[in-house]
């Protein structure tokens, strides 16, 4: 289902998702319950929508002031996967959301992310579907267009995409790099993983520790922001270099030491994955 179904963004991307083949069964816009939109029913609450349609995945196009509440509403209704596209949610709201989700079966992806796509099967996100040709490479990334770039390179290198997970560029996100990489490690459709990080935080270092310990598939990594000056926020709320251990170079060193094939140039992601797979 789509939360924020009848708004401009919700309508546009719901249409795109339906065209891609996603099984979209309805949506929620408080106050518009009982009407139809894109030939699908609109409900007032997530609870009503879930009970009436059986939906267990929700994608959110809810404005930042109301997004945290909408995520908790979805979790409360037992939605298994919540993908939050919304950019600009206050940090304090996300601290509360993260606490609320503890102990619940709901997985949150995002916020401030492009969503999740399993090539040729299902798209719960805003990415251009045609870029993600079917194959066996999984992608985990904090950013939108850089994910498309990586997918495009992987496809042009003669490979293709299994599932791409855009985890989001905010300081607090529901599914950190480590968990997304772990999901792809366990996915039988995925034979190699592209992991794209950014300056700020220690999620890539956590993921690298996991890859070193549990990794059973090759991982190609890239960290955006090698040239970013310290203390300046680079667009994403989370992309800001703090202390000396927080730089792109430090992250890349940790990733290399964990057996990840780190590329310096974003232009080399696809061909590096191809050559790593050939060597195996």
């Amino acid at each position, binding site marked *: 289902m789509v939360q924020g179904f009848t708004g401009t963004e919700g309508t546009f991307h719901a249409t795109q998702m339906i065209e891609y083949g996603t099984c979209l069964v309805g949506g929620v816009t408080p106050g518009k319950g009982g009407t139809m939109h894109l030939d699908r029913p609109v409900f007032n609450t997530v609870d009503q929508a879930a009970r009436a349609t059986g939906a267990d995945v929700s994608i959110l196009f809810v404005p*930042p002031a109301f997004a945290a509440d909408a995520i908790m509403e979805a979790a409360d209704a037992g939605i298994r996967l919540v993908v939050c596209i919304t950019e600009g949610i206050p940090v*304090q709201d*996300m601290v*509360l959301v993260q606490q609320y989700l503890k102990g619940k079966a709901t997985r949150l992806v995002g916020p401030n992310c492009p969503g999740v796509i399993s090539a040729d099967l299902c798209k719960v996100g805003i990415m251009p579907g045609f870029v993600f040709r079917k194959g066996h490479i999984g992608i985990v990334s904090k950013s939108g*267009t850089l994910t498309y770039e990586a997918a495009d390179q992987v496809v*042009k290198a003669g490979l293709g995409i299994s599932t791409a997970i855009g985890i989001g560029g905010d300081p*607090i996100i529901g599914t950190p790099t480590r968990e997304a990489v772990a999901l792809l490690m366990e996915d039988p459709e995925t034979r190699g993983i592209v992991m794209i990080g950014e300056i700020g935080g220690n999620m890539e270092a956590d993921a690298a520790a996991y890859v070193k310990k549990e990794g059973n598939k090759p991982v190609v990594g890239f960290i955006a922001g090698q040239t970013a000056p310290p203390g300046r926020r680079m667009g994403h709320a989370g992309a800001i270099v703090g202390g000396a251990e927080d730089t792109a170079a430090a992250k890349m060193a940790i990733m290399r030491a964990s057996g990840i094939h780190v590329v310096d140039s*974003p232009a080399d992601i696809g061909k590096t994955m191809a050559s790593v797979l050939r060597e195996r």
Partner: protein
Amino acid sequence: MNLHEYQAKALLKRFQVPVQEGIPADNSEAAVDAFKKLRMETGTKWAVIKAQIHAGGRGKGRIAGTEQRGVAIAKNAEEVKTIAGNLIGGTLVTVQTGVSGKKVNKVLVAQDVYYPGPSPVKEFYLSILLDRSRGQHVLIYSTEGGMDIEEVASHNPERIFREWVYPGSALKPFQARKIAFNLGLQGEANRHMVKFVISLYDAYSSLDCALIEINPLFKTADDRILAVDCKMRLDDNALFRHPDLADLRDITEEDPAEVEAGKYNLNFVKLDGNVGCMVNGAGLAMATMDMIKLSGGEPATFLDVGGTANAQTVEAGFRIILKDPKVKAILINIFGGIVRCDRVAQGVIDAYRSIGDIRIPIIVRLQGTNAEAAKELIEKSGLKVQSAILLSEAAALVNQAVA
């Protein structure tokens, strides 16, 4: 959004956080008046004149071309006038401002807190910010105040303490007591510190702060606890909840080009290099900067045009980049997903024609939806624009342009 010390202290007072009292002034006469008023109100003998800029290290920094420090003691009205006169209108260079420094428009005339009394004075450090890895706000504090906290962290990590706050909750009294006792405080000073940190956390969460740093956090000779300095940053995403705080923004502290870019909803950070870039998406923009560096150039901009790259935004981006005389080439890197590349290409052509005289090479890399059609449009336009489809091709063109 960063606030000045005087603004931050005024906000703290709303939450009953005791601060070193002071009055802001924007010329030397007003500073003298402020000094007289402050003497009446607080009984302070001397005053501390503090330059108000958005950067730390003021006490050790100097006004360019002079010996005037950014924070100085004045013992009488004459000295207040001289120091304020030296500071206001001057350019203060500190370790945090970079060599170009920051212009001082205001000073804070503040009370002297080092007055004598029954017990020795003490300086502590306290900051509150988000601990991303735990998803909780954390108070970081130390017995070593008044100094660079990163240095304390590397040389004496045992003198730095942390206290995490349960999400959605106030700072608990037991946590506040823990902080006060860890700082070695007893009796009256301990009780004042407990109240101080509880009120400070209340201010932090009520104002949607991204950072509060109190350095030094001060114990006076008569056991009062005061915030002598305060660095405060607000969460930009939460400003909609605090319309009154938006007025505290000081755009003179920001790069004029960045302010201009903000008007067009461009996400822009000025950098120091020779290749300007214009990209859709923050991650791809950072990656493009990295690629420019690897191709032998230095990025001159971080410029994210967002999801709707059209002729207007592209033109605004062009004009902002072209203002920098150091820029030798411009790279436009758009991955068209929902935006169609041919429309972006038309935007580039229109913007180019509208500006007219562009004397540096423009490299346009359009990939994704309708990329081929876009390349054809650009090649047929007759403009001196080089086009590329693969990122590696764009890198090679950047390399040629800066060689």
